[in-house]
């Protein structure tokens, strides 16, 4: 993925979305079957459940040059595995304060609930996060650390 749009030279953010298999992945499928259009700079990584998301995955994504991360799963109460999304939510609360402490802009990580019926919400979410991260500009800090062999 190229960081800059070759045609215009404008900054295009790179986003990765960690989504659960049962709600958000299906919601994103629904956006497709409904032929909704949204920003093309997101890459989806499918996991069984948001409970599977270790925050090392998110840090690795930043180290890999991502400018923003979306984490999305089933709404509270709707988890296919009953409670996986609660684990994710709790972990996110902790991780959020750690991000803040570490100086990583929390606006680069977006936590959301998108159900299997919410294709439009998924499209809006990607557009919104894409727009916000575009405002924030490219994320270089963590890559710098990685380059020095620190992270």
């Amino acid at each position, binding site marked *: *993925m*190229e960081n800059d*749009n070759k045609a215009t030279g404008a900054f*295009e953010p*790179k986003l*990765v979305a960690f989504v659960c298999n*049962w*709600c958000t*992945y*299906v919601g*994103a*499928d629904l*956006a*497709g*079957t409904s*032929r*909704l*259009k*949204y920003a*093309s*700079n997101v*890459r*989806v*990584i*499918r*996991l*069984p*459940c948001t*409970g*599977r*998301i*270790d925050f090392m*995955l998110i840090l*690795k*994504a930043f180290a*890999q*040059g*991502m400018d923003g991360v979306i984490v999305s799963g089933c709404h509270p*109460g*709707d*988890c*296919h*595995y*009953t*409670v*996986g999304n609660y*684990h994710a939510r709790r*972990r996110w609360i902790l991780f959020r304060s750690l991000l803040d402490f570490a100086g990583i802009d929390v606006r680069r990580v977006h936590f959301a609930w998108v*159900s*299997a*019926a*919410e294709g439009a919400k998924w*499209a809006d979410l990607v557009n919104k996060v894409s727009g916000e991260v575009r405002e924030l500009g490219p994320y270089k800090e963590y890559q710098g650390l990685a380059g020095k062999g620190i992270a």
Partner: protein
Amino acid sequence: MARIGVFVCHCGENIAGTVDCPKVVESMMHIPGVVHAVDYKYMCSDPGQRMVRDAIREHKLTGVVVAACSPRMHEPTFRRACAEAGLNPFLCEISNIREHCSWVHEKSEATTQKAIDLVRVMVEKVKRNRELQPISVPVTKTALVLGGGIAGIQAALDIANCGHKVVLVEREPSIGGHMAQLSETFPTLDCSQCIMTPRMVEVAQNENITLYTYSELESLDGFIGNFKAKIRMKARSVDMNLCTGCGSCYQKCPQKKIPSEFNTGLGTRTAIYTPFLQAVPNKPVIDRDNCLYFKKGVCKLCEKVCPTKAIKYDQQDEIVEVDVGAVVVATGYNVLNTGFFPEYGYGKYKDVITGLQFERLASASGPTSGEIRRPSDGKVPETVVFVACSGSRDPAKGLPYCSKVCCMYTAKHAMLYKHKMHEGKAYIFYMDIRAGGKMYEEFVRRAVEEDGVNYVRGRVSRIYEEDGQLVVKGADTLLGGMPLEIKADLVVLATAMVASPGAEELAQKLHVSYDAYKFISEAHPKLRPVETNTAGVFVAGACQAPKDIPETVAQASGAASKVLQLFSKPELMREPVVAVVNRTAPPLFSTCVGCFLCEKACPYQAIGREEIKARDGKVLKVVAKVNAGLCQGCGTCVALCRSKSIDLQGFTNEQIFAEIMAL
């Protein structure tokens, strides 16, 4: 060294229209480990699958990536093709470049680039896939059917008649559902009760069916083939074994003015009651909210008159636990006035009623014994106005979807009315007439041509009362929007069909997905219409979407046949997406440090403890151990594990980090 084959599908124009497929193929060839890449118009077709099989043999592939539609569509198809060619099916992965790429972006270089990225990510994952073997699990050959309407009854009978046990749970005191409330059914006008009640009796007499009425599902745990259901039998206050259904109790009950649910509030019932005369089981319940004894501690008349001493005021709710292998959800719908159109005056004017209420008025078992009399004064109406789409197909004020049955039942209502009141006038305000179905269009034509029902194309803006009559204001859009005012004695609203109360909570208990209107989602709208996203849970009838009786019965039989398919073998094969705790050489044995955070986090109690012993039996170490039969593969334990000793097959840390590294 990995030998990966990449197969890029055009999906006709669906993918190739926006993604440059040859370019995707070309860029794959530069990835180390990819030895074969090809694109084809329809990869899922027989020649397409043959390309995959041939390539596996010819190029000795160790992994396959199919870049096509969502894995929810064709992952099983391609995994099967791989297995046929001798490749372990779990070495095949799908890269979703249709729903997640070509359908949601415009044709551009960026879209092709995204497709390339998505495929590359999957190639890196597949390189790290391991051969996995499906897990075989035993199947409990008992089905749980939720809902005793026509859908649940049909499914239960189909399964029971094949010799399997069925547990049928119904929330109300009797089975029968909405169909038992209907008068006559379109397009044949045969009496609903005449076709419904024999089936209800069949359920009661079938020795394979255990019936729990006045009961609700409390919880469902487990997984396909091995569910544990807890059913709450609500306190009936009547001993089912002693009661003979003689009816002395409800004849004597002094509380006679309670609006009857079965008669949609148009008739009354007593506090101890059976919903209707043909109820199955024909045994009453005490409505504790309205019973004098429960309210004020006095009365006990029913206990005095009961010849078998069956009245038990101290009865408590009881929880029954049953082991079942499959679940059929058939909890139906609701048509309560949803208050979308306050200007129609439902609830304000007694003579504005819903379609279901009209069914009760027209039914021989109804409060008027089948005579159509208006609720306010019992007068036979001379003019009746029917308003179709009272809430349906109105994204601005109501619900955007079509309730599907209203066009037909409105025509039927007008017809039934005209059959009973030849001189009466029937008007139907409609948007379109949707009469798709065998003999349906002919039925509507009959209403117009033979019975003289007046169809007015247009919406109703307001209904108000004037001199004891209802004034219906509307417009006839076929006459250029000419304003229209009809003085009516009775107005019938075809209110929208909505999900039944508690549908959301039920879906959550079953872990199935549901749509924005709380209708349960099927696994695939075309190809898997009776399955849900949760293996072993099937769906039938109007809890999935509004539908009529023939469709409901067809879907219920479909669900039953899926259950029977599951019950046809003693064991079933499950995907081996389960967690495993690693094992290493002694003296470590495993990197697991025995903190057992995973044990606490597991929603399925699938993690136990294992003692690692020396030859003399001395316990060297206690580590976590996953019970693969119980594990559902959510991976919550993996994210928690401090020492990274537990991993999820199919979604290992190695695989996911490789995916991220490939971004």
